[in-house]
């Protein structure tokens, strides 16, 4: 495999070319000057070769099917990449006078509006930098809301056992105690238990809809009713919005706060793990608490020659800013381009196709793998590898076998409430042929689990490295090179 940069480094090599100093030198603060800086030394050619080779070691959406559940690994339109790199977007400074960045502010303002329209929640902050950051923002908004009403006795938050890990982690960061709510036999939140747990000490419920089982919460209106009745609010984790675009508005289903994942639903690429965008939408009631600044628009529309769009900091009830500036602007540009490309009807076809694709996989794999909750799914479906596990072939083994068959594995071992979970999200950008090829591979693996379990357990074989010693890695962590 490709060596590390430091192994490729050779003293005196340079990969940069900088202008020479064109001003007189000044005296350096010698007591503060460092002695040494052990960065690698390589020519430009070597840098490019290294990272190009590294890139080829990756599976990616551009090179194949990547049905990683909960992550919405849809195809990222190349158009978006191009427009986001325009110097008028990339080369503007966040502290420029607002009159000189009206195009950027207009884009943000319109994006706020579009997301409000899609979610049915009228007030939007684009500042959160990823989904979990949106959760933090939203839960702090909920907290501020209660406190502002003088309701300072709410110290707990309810979180379903199927929730994504960021939900309870977020609640903790906001100072809440987490109470876990069970799911029922249909994969819904257990309404009776919810009813029992909900009281005036509960700030709210963190709900995911469709939930992490890929299932629509059948009692969502009732759930919202129960929570609201007790004075709580509904935080809706919108990571799964790819199922609901133009299908239903969370704001009309009882959500008070919802974060979106611009890097999932709105096609901004995942970047190997970010950057994301966690735009957060709230009800009118909660608007005042959103982070500062939000983008505003002057009523007069700047017709007097003044700036039309502006950054609104004058929000005394705001929870404060949650990041350095105004959010991941570059990601917003991509989401904006995507929304303008599709329009309202186009968005609905996105969700329709995402859901149809997932149901097709669900149907085609039923009988080969256990389906813990046997009902139509939304944009993803969750199987259990329990049957195979009984044969000694675990979900992890099957995931690795899929790699050998040319597919990125689904999300595995999540949600936690499904044993040996396999969480498959095809997205709308995959063709029927791809789904069929994936189905064939999965069925083959199910067969192999019976006939040739070793084959599955010993995979992957086609990758530059085999299964890695994770225990060893954690026991004696080697987290950087020794220069």
């Amino acid at each position, binding site marked *: 495999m490709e060596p590390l940069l430091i192994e490729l480094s050779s003293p005196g090599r340079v990969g940069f070319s900088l202008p020479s100093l064109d001003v007189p030198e000044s005296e350096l603060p010698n007591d503060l000057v460092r002695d040494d800086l052990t960065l690698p030394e390589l020519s430009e050619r070597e840098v490019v070769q290294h990272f190009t080779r590294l890139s080829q070691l990756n599976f990616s959406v551009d090179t194949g099917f990547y049905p990683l559940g909960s992550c919405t690994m849809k195809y990222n339109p190349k158009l978006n990449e191009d427009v986001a790199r325009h110097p008028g977007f990339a080369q503007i400074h966040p502290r420029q006078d607002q009159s000189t960045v009206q195009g950027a502010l207009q884009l943000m303002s319109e994006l706020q509006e579009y997301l409000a329209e899609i979610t049915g929640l009228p007030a939007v902050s684009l500042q959160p930098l990823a989904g979990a950051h949106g959760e933090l923002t939203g839960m702090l908004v909920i907290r501020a809301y209660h406190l502002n009403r003088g309701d300072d006795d709410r110290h707990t938050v309810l979180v379903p056992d199927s929730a994504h890990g960021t939900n309870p982690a977020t609640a903790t960061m906001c100072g809440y105690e987490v109470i876990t709510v069970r799911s029922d036999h249909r994969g819904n939140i257990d309404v009776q238990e919810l009813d029992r747990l909900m009281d005036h000490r509960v700030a709210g419920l963190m709900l995911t809809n469709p939930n992490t089982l890929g299932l629509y919460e059948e009692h969502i209106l009732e759930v919202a009713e129960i929570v609201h009745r007790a004075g709580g609010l509904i935080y809706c984790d919108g990571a799964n919005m790819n199922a609901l675009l133009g299908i239903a508005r969370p704001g009309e289903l009882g959500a008070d706060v919802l974060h979106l994942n611009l890097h999932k639903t709105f096609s901004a690429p995942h970047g190997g793990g970010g950057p994301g965008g966690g735009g957060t939408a709230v009800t009118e009631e909660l608007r005042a608490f959103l982070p500062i600044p939000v983008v505003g628009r002057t009523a007069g529309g700047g017709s007097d020659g003044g700036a039309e769009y502006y950054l609104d900091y004058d929000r005394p009830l705001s929870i404060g800013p949650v990041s350095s500036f105004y959010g991941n*602007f570059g990601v917003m540009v991509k989401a904006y381009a995507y929304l303008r490309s599709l329009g309202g009807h186009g968005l609905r076809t996105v969700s329709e196709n995402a859901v149809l694709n997932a149901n097709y996989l669900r149907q085609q794999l039923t009988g080969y793998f256990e389906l813990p909750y046997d009902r139509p799914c939304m944009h993803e479906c969750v199987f259990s590898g329990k049957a195979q596990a009984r044969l000694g072939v675990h979900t992890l083994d099957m995931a690795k076998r899929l790699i050998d068959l040319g597919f990125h594995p689904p999300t595995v071992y999540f949600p936690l409430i499904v044993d040996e979970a396999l969480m498959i999200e095809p997205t*709308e950008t995959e063709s029927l042929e791809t789904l069929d090829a994936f189905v064939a591979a999965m069925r083959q693996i199910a067969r192999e689990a019976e006939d040739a379990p070793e084959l599955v357990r010993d995979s992957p074989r086609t990758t530059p490295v085999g299964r890695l010693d994770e225990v060893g890695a954690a026991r004696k962590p080697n987290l950087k090179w020794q220069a």
Partner: protein
Amino acid sequence: MSSYIPNTDADRARMLEALGSDSVDQLFEVIPAEKRFPALKLPGPLSEMEVKTLLRGLSEKNADLDHHPCFLGAGAYHHFVPSVVDHIIGRGEFYTAYTPYQAEASQGTLISIYEFQSMVCALMGMDVANASMYDGATALAEAGLMAARATRRYKLIVASTLNPGYRRVLRTYTQGIRMEIHDLRRDDDGRVDAVQAEELIDGETAAVVVQQPNFLGCLEDLAPLSELAHQRGALLVVCVDPISLGLLKPPGELGADIAVGEGQSLGNPPSYGGPYVGLFACRQQYVRQMPGRLVGMTTDAEGRRGFVLTLQPREQHIRREKATSNICTNEALVALAAATYLAAMGKAGLHQVAELCYHKAHYAAREIEGLPGYERVLGDFFKEFVIRTPVPPAEVNKRLWERGIIGAYPLAADYPELTDCLLFCVTEMNSREQIDQLVGALRGIGR
């Protein structure tokens, strides 16, 4: 059908048949009819060409730094980005992958993160660095939280010379939890007040939080602070400008227990404030308290070297409400840009960038101080410096803009005592010609 959706009506019909459904709509019957299929009032769909034109139009409404000299810094910087960076982060295999959960299928991302971690450590003189935080402000906030975890103390002493935005984000992050935050004022030289530090830092203090060079551009003297903090069992958290580390002593050498910083300068354009990347490093002993992802080196069964996400039990997907942070998606691609940048610049390049910034900023400062009516205030600095202006700062900026120059950052809102001051930033992107143009313009404005 959209060009982004492959399946045709015929494909859908085949799938529906397999499902025994009549229509796609049926799949959504679980949603109450009155909530189902809202007509979204969004602008109609546009073709690719139209979107391109529309976005070009919007972008051209902005004044960009390719076309205007700029002297703004204050947390976001205009540094040179070598062409290679965009070519590398533009590789589909990198930017269309996700978090490398499946190590065997993600060695490219994993190795690049390991290298990023290694280079951040080298830069900062620290033992371990994570795979990235969202940005500088959130990295700082997480450092505050981590210091509390590590010390089981809940008081932070925060320099008023720390980026005011970061201070606000720290307050946002800690508003729901037990955390006392005290401001540590500055002295006349623009550095942390040593006397007050002595008073504030006590046996309850989790950490002292400072910035180097600080928000006002000044070079702090960290040695006494470090000593003080460590004496009283507190950690020293230092927020740095990574570019300055091409020249200046790293926080690790100055006693920092946790070092954070905004990594945007390392190969990323200012991009109206994001995506940026938070750098986060600490001493070895605190590694299990760290937020965020970590990549480690290990081996496969055949002894081949490979890389994996490691120490995951700190993270939300394993530990849930007991995690060290809720962070999941981070800023991997921006970190990759930083790694590519650091590889391309290397030891000599980063040093040269830092020196160019230093000398150019000092040249500019000298020239400006020499102008009638302008005065440089505060002490030694790196690439940013504070100038008291003879006409109100907003007016200065307005008149610079009339000449096409994007001016400097007015300090009034954050530092009332510096109401008549501007924070100038000069980097390697500012040619002498630009600086002289600025100086000429300021002369005219001061008259």
